[in-house]
């Protein structure tokens, strides 16, 4: 039979010689390999004290964006939800009332916005679909938890910190990635 790869090796059925029957040399040979790794460079890091840099295209936890004045960008157009292959995003829209202009950028906004992180596969299609520059995938993981209900992220969990009330947290949330050119 023709071998599929050239890595296959014919099993040898020869009786073992004296050195092989002693076993100890083979064990020492193995231990040498094991102990030699102590002096080599470690491939692991001490997470969470140390963190690896993310790739510029890393897709992590979603964040809902605000404009420079701190108003929410999302208008609950539903394009992220319809683009979501895992059907993780749900929302309910409401009309902006007089007096709420400092909260929401347009006359319609998402009164409720939820992402089920148990369903989310971090594909980034919501970010692609968004016409309002409102949802981004950030450079953070979804934190682990003991309970399933903690993974239903509401709008409060997802919104970026207010740029005027909490500028340091806002700058931190923006991350180090270069800003995408906005398309009008």
């Amino acid at each position, binding site marked *: 039979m023709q071998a599929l790869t050239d890595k296959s090796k014919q099993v040898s059925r020869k009786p073992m010689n004296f050195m092989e029957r002693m076993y100890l040399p083979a064990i020492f040979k193995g231990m040498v390999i094991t102990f030699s790794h102590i002096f080599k460079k470690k491939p692991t890091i001490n997470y969470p004290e140390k963190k690896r840099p993310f790739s510029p295209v890393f897709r992590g936890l979603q964040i809902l964006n605000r404009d420079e004045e701190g108003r929410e960008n999302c208008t609950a*157009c*539903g394009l992220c939800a319809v683009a979501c292959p895992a059907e993780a995003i*749900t929302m309910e*829209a*409401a009309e902006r009332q007089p007096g709420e202009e400092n909260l929401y950028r347009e006359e319609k906004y998402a*009164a*409720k916005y939820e992402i089920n992180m148990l369903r989310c596969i971090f594909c980034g299609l919501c970010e692609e679909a968004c016409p309002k520059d409102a949802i981004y995938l950030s450079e953070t993981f979804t934190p682990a938890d003991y309970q399933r209900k903690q993974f239903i992220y*509401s709008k409060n969990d997802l919104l970026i910190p207010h740029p005027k009330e909490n500028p340091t947290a806002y700058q931190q949330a923006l991350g180090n990635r270069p800003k995408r050119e906005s398309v009008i």
Partner: protein
Amino acid sequence: MSDETKKIKVTIDNITIDVDPGTTILNAARRIGGDVTPPAMCYYSKLEGSGGKCRTCLVEVAAGSTADPRPMPKLVASCRTGVMDGMVVKNITSDKVTDARNGVVEFLLLNHPLDCPICDQAGECHLQDLGYDHGKEGTRYQFARRTFKKEDIGPYIQLHMTRCILCYRCTYVADQITNKRVHGIVDRGDHAAISTYISKAIDNDFSGNMIDVCPVGALTDKTFRFKNRVWFTKPVDAHRSCTTPGCCGKATLWLRGEEVFRVTARKDEWGEVQSYDGKPGWICNTCRFDTKATASWTIEGLTTISRHSVIGANKYKTLEMPKETIKEVMHGVEPKLLMDIHSVSGVNNPDIHLSDIDRPAHSSDFKK
């Protein structure tokens, strides 16, 4: 037409069809169907006198008739041009037509606000479809878009004048279906706007049909405003015995769970109101705005949605819930629910009925 011999032959995009004399090119093309049919934004077959305004249905006539086979010098509006015997029409096979239509779409979009993310018509908007087929990615227009003061035209209908393309369909509806027209186009040229004459409310029994005929989101349902996106609601055909004279009682319900979010007239394949025995199936305002309970309707079945429409996305193709098989297989042992989503989620709260609110939802509605 007493005999069959009076039919005349017309060739549209190399497809020949026999039609009655007096048929327009557009209606002949609709008899063929498919890609051959020119798009129409202002022509509405159920409204007398409509058409000839938007210019999206332009076609090239390569040969006028058998008697006079010269081509027509300019592109013609197919909704207003009658067919002649032996006429040869080019629609999608003509580069001139595609070019002209792209230009028309660019003009229609000059002043259009492109606020599709907040527009309730998005997903079933004819201008959106047209823009996808013929639109450019950017705009060459460098000036401020035309804007209007907001005007309240009654409790049921929301008017967004900035989105209007001045197709005149709604004025024809008011003229031909209702007994009294209180709105129309006021002013001229760039200032032309749909308006009621000196701030009147439109309160006729059939005024809601203006919403159905509007090809864009200029006239939308106030009771459905911002409630949900069309593609998250499930359309089903339903009927009820309506006592209003002239109302056919046959409608499409747009459901979210068991709640009726919106009622519209049934649409045919051209996006127009469906006809029953040759009569257009207009529905009255009682059916459209005031009958929002599933119990008042007899549901017939799912509405057929075009495969290409976003409205059909992510939906079960039947009305029945899929059968739970785990209990059967496990000898009566119920599956253990690890999390009831309604106990955690704030969206689709079973205690908040958005369909009961006859205006758009406000922040106070979610604070219960």
